[in-house]
């Protein structure tokens, strides 16, 4: 038996050395080491060997098997034109530099796509605007105390006789009358997303921020439709389980006017430290005031509409659970911050 094994080994080594391709090597592997291979057959015969010799023969067969496997592998590696070298696939990769989109960009992308799916048209209107479109056309005459709510920046430029002073638009609502004048004949379903400016700066306010404004005008537009639209947005943006509610409020350019709340995701509406009785304030909304329709040359006897305008940054932070301790971080240039978005 011992001789049989040794001669089998020599025969195999000779054939492996002669082999010219890896296919040939595969065949040799089957011939000797396969399920019905020559060496395997010998292993099966092991039980017929006297018990005294069995251990020694067993070791020999095992050694033979190991050395054949090794020879075949090493021959295989030497073979072929690529003369393969040893390769380590676990080596760490070299990644191209990783870029990133800003959180505000991501938020705007998401918000506009939600509204575009229900037929809203995204538009853009001036960030530096006439007082007329920012206030006057929105039913806010010059002397009205409601203007205090918008801490407005004024530009050092001669006022226009018709449109008044030049201001940095404090809200996207300035686009409402411009959109009415552009479209002329409803239906209007506008989503206006833009930079806005207000004289404010603290941990929850920045002097430059973004708003998104929805405006819908058509026949028979009602409070029920406003609720439907807000709920549609809340479900798609914040998640299925979130709810909205309307509370009475006062804006000069809508009547009735609402403050819109969304149920708090931290406590599921039960009430916690971060919310007011289970609700978080999202922003304002309302039914377009007939005087605003009039400024937009739209017949308020024929058409009605609703509008809402909310902060992009605010809404996104309420959604994502990114707890940014100071909103001014959003406008930081620090790469270590920017890479987190």
């Amino acid at each position, binding site marked *: 038996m011992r001789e049989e094994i040794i001669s089998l080994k020599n025969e195999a080594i000779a054939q492996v050395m002669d082999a010219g391709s890896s296919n040939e090597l595969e065949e040799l592997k089957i011939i000797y080491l396969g399920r019905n291979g020559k060496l395997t057959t010998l292993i099966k015969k092991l039980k017929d060997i006297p018990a005294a010799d069995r251990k020694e023969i067993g070791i020999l067969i095992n050694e033979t098997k190991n050395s054949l496997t090794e020879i075949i592998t090493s021959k295989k590696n030497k073979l072929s034109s690529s003369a393969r070298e040893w390769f380590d696939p676990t080596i760490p990769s070299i990644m191209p530099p990783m870029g990133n989109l800003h959180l*505000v960009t991501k938020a705007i992308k998401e918000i506009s796509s939600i509204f575009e799916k229900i037929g809203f048209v995204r538009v853009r209107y001036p960030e530096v605007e*006439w007082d007329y479109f920012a206030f006057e056309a929105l039913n806010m005459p010059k002397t009205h105390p409601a203007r205090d709510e918008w801490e407005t920046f004024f*530009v050092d430029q001669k006022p226009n006789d018709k449109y008044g002073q030049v201001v940095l638009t404090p809200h996207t609502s300035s686009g409402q009358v411009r959109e009415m004048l552009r479209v002329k004949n409803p239906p209007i379903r506008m989503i206006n997303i833009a930079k806005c400016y207000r004289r404010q700066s603290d941990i929850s306010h920045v002097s430059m921020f973004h708003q998104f404004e929805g405006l819908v005008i058509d026949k028979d537009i009602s409070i029920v439709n406003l609720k439907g639209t807000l709920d549609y947005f809340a479900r798609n943006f914040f998640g299925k389980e979130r709810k909205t509610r309307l509370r009475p409020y006062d804006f000069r350019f809508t009547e009735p006017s609402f403050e819109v709340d969304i149920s708090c995701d931290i406590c599921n509406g039960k009430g916690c430290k971060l919310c007011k009785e289970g609700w978080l304030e999202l922003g304002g909304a309302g039914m377009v005031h007939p005087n605003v329709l009039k400024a937009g040359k739209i017949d308020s006897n024929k058409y009605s509409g609703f509008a809402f305008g909310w902060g992009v940054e605010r809404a996104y932070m309420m959604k994502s659970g990114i707890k940014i301790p100071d909103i001014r971080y959003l406008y930081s*240039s620090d790469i270590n911050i920017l890479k987190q978005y």
Partner: protein
Amino acid sequence: MDIFIPNSWLKDFLETNASPKDIARYLSLSGPSVEKVIKENNDYIYKVEITTNRVDSASVYGFAREASAILPRFGIKSKLKPLKFSSKYNFFDKVKYLDVSLDTKLCTRFTAVLIKNVTIKDSPEHIKDRLIKIGLRPINNVVDISNYIMHELGQPLHTFDYDKIGKSKMILRESKKGEEITTLDRKHFVLPGGDIVIEDGDGKIIDLCGIMGGKNSMVTENTKNVLLFVQTYNPQRIRRTSMTLAQRSEASILFEKDLDEENVEPAIKRSIDLFEKITKGKAENLILDIYPKPYKTKIIKTSLSFINKLIGESISKEDVASSLKLLGFSLKWNKDALEVSIPSFRSKDINIPEDIVEEIARIYGYHNLKSELMNGKLPEKLLNPPFEFEENLKNILSILGGIEIYTYSLVAESLTNEHSLKLLNPLGKDTEYLRNTMIYSLINAADANNSDDESFHLFEIANIYITKKNDLPEERMMLSGIFSKYQYVKAKGIIETLLKKIRIPYSFEIEDKKEFLPNNRLVIKTGSNEIGEFGTLENGNIYYELNTSLLQKYGNIIKPFVTPFKYPAQIEDISFIFPERTKIGDVMESIKKLDSQISRIELIDMFEKSYTFRIWYQNKSKTLSNIEVENIRKNIISKTMSAFGASVKN
């Protein structure tokens, strides 16, 4: 405006078993928003936000009135308790103790009464306690009564030392520009003119009406006789004065919101009662009351169908009626048509049928309404919206390693070019201008990161603002970016990849400009139009900017389809040695133009002055022979040698 209302005080006027928590929740849902309920000793204090239009609810009594209308709809019994007065008052438009002449455009109701023999001292504890709860500091009984009544009824009042009013005479008139007054808080003002003031019989100005009284007529601890003074003023005038002089007193904040003239009467009656009780003074029997245009019930006409159309749901006549009645309105139906009579305290903010709809809907409960998306036709899309295009630019750059940044468009003077728009009321010097270039913002952003040794690429898409005479500025959307510690060729490669991705034909031209190293700035052109720039800055960073609307206008070029060449190219490398300062871009362009059969050329290696180009020779209808290739090669070599002074390296 926010006001504080102690629950104990509220209960003076509201009969209900609603808990403070219920009151806060339900009032917020259907009326003024209760921002917070603060528990203090045995009391609760509501912090309430009052909107500009609802000055009628900016008081304890007003809030109680709202609560009595709102709570029943939530199944909680509530009743408003009427105000109580002693019954001895007579109102008359002339009295012996005061001679008044009045401009009724400025003052819509003027009441006053003389209270003799007052004793000035501390207020009783329960008055002090309530004032402290609403955040006021008790002073003395006269001042405290004013504050107390203002908070309870929402009507400011004023007190004069009667003996300091010259000749017991008052002329209420417009101020002239330059007139002066020292108010009781010792501030001195030179008036802009058109303010409401009172002049006494000696020609002194003794009151800056609605803002603050004059020091020369103020009540002091020696005062014996007090003139109690309750008025409503022209709200625009009050606002103008208070804004111009930057004096935002609590009284002026109420007056500028157009107070209800009918509220003056209960206010002066309550005040007299308190004065007599607390200061032990004695009021005259006749109260002076000049009220030329008493309130006539305002009527708003609307209809059930209009109400239901705007709400979007059918609300029954009964529900409409019960909601409005709870609010103190009365109604008259004529089939579908509805006439609503408005009580005086709501007459200033209820003006159109939409206002009536709001009242019905909020009392009915917004939470009881359905929620449905609108039907109807969809609007037309914009012709060439920029949004997707800009988004694509951002995506490409971020995939190529760019980190998007948002920087402030309000900058310091040093961070923008000449002729930038300047703000009239900036928050500070560092945000005084609207930038008309992005370059300085991005240089700053890169500098903020320069402690880091790693290379980075920041970019931003934002408007710059270009001043236009007598018009709004042009808002130009720019894509700008900055590379720090980047190899020049890699940075340039990123920008060229971007330009190729958006399919815009482009060329470069060297043109120097401020901030860039000499001979380092490339103007990027498409045809003859300048669309941007790229180059190395003085500080070693690489900066670029591109006008996004021009990119969109000239980009997205669809080239006609070209069948790939059937015959393979012959490829070979040629190395040249060039003199110093040779522009390799120009060399390659010139080689490419030599022969249409040169299908491609690339720089594959450079070492010192030697440059190796790989050249593809290809003809679309045949395989080029060696001789043909040799002829082209000879041409390349001779032209390059003569045009650029090059020599071939072997």
